[in-house]
């Protein structure tokens, strides 16, 4: 890609998301060691998305970020579909990153998180949280540059993670 205006923002929304789920997962993922093909959760997510939001304009790619779908209201809305709320912070930061990204491109937007299985949505706006996003970006960049993955920390969420076996076998 030539002369993309945001060449300092080379990370993806998923990477921001993973930072808040697990730095070890982030490292593996960023190095192309992906496990998503193994996960039935990911298949389920894709299926839910297809069924519920099949008519939306989906997977909008802007530079490095790929947004689930976009609606154009008074201002642009970026929509992100999630399965459950257990990783809410991660979802929120991912949405904030998209908003930050768009703002740097001169686009004002708001984000909507969808939880179709809970029948809930959550609106997110950037107002004044740029600092938080920038810190997250720096942390992602730092972790990606580590020579080895950060030592995993065992927690409840490990069990459902597609990387569970890789980390703990």
């Amino acid at each position, binding site marked *: 890609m030539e002369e993309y205006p945001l060449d300092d923002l080379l990370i993806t929304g998923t990477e921001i998301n993973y930072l808040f789920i697990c730095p070890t997962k982030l490292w593996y993922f960023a*190095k192309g060691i992906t496990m998503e093909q*193994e996960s039935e959760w990911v298949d389920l997510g894709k299926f839910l998305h297809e069924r519920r939001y099949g008519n939306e304009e989906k997977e909008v790619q802007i530079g490095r970020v790929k947004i689930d779908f976009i609606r154009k209201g008074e201002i642009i809305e970026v929509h992100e579909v999630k399965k459950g709320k257990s990783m809410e912070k991660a979802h929120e930061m991912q949405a904030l990153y998209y908003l930050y990204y768009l703002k740097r491109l001169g686009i004002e937007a708001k984000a909507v998180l969808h939880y179709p299985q809970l029948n809930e949505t959550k609106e997110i706006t950037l107002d004044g949280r740029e600092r938080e996003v920038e810190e997250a970006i720096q942390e992602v960049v730092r972790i990606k540059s580590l020579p080895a993955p950060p030592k995993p920390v065992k927690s409840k969420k490990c069990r459902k993670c597609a990387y569970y*076996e890789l980390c*703990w*076998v």
Partner: protein
Amino acid sequence: MRKRSKTILSDGTLFRRENTLYFQNAKMKKPKPLVVEGIYDIYIYGHVNITSQALHYLAQKGIAVHFFNHHGYYDGSFYPREKLHSGDLVIRQVEHYLNREKRLQLARLFVKGSALNMEKNLKRWKVADGFSGLLEELFRELEMAKKITEIMNVEARIRSEYYSRWDEHLPEDFKIVKRTRRPPENEMNALISFLNSRLYATIVSELYNTQLVPTVSYLHEPGERRFSLALDLSEIFKPIIADRIANRLVKQGTIRKEHFRGELNGVLLTKEGMRKVVEAYNDEMRKSVRHPNLKTNVTKQRLIRLEAYKLMRHFVGVGRYDPLVAWF
């Protein structure tokens, strides 16, 4: 749905019609639809025609197909274009080959793991006579080995000690006596070779589903137009998968003399013999054991994948690869 391995022993045609894969058995009228979403990989022993449409479809679904000749030996695989890539991991995997110390370390670990699994078998079969003491000595030699050929040499000595003890446990008609391959000169050798071929193909399938490069290996020399990393891993699994199945089949009389035929090129399993062995193999791979680290039940087949994951961790620098030693 848990994906399963599909084995085709009969003759026929594998083809695609619309979005369904069918197998037309040569002896039956109606083609049988195969649920592609439920297939992990395919093993073909029969005389099977495959249409290119079927292959396109299998490639799209990422399903590897392994072919065996009519002696039951591995011929090759249809290994769909790889979909999992990690440049970073490839570089590290190769680095562990190029760095002599790192390569020797891995080669030693494969031999060690293999030997400890042989020891475990001999204890199960109650013929471990002096084997452990011998291993201690050979492991010291292994540590001092500075060349792959020296490591290979230790490996060969361990193996021959293992076979001679295993022989004590085997029925008179099924002694190994001397391990012979290509062609196997007696029944037990034929049985072991058949199982090893099958195991090798299973490991190829498992590697296909990881980011590891199957041709970069450590104990075996890479680049012999073989998936030599699968050979490295098979050292670990041959004793606890193939040997145990072979042992059980002859001890329980499931496989008997009549399941073999003598040919110009050695002793081979008959079609019926192959059927029985494959059935036993598939059953065995679906059996699960409780994994002490994961605290969950995993199938014997999954243990191979887990071993690949341990190697990946070794390559990215998280601790040292610790070969599987059967606790079951």
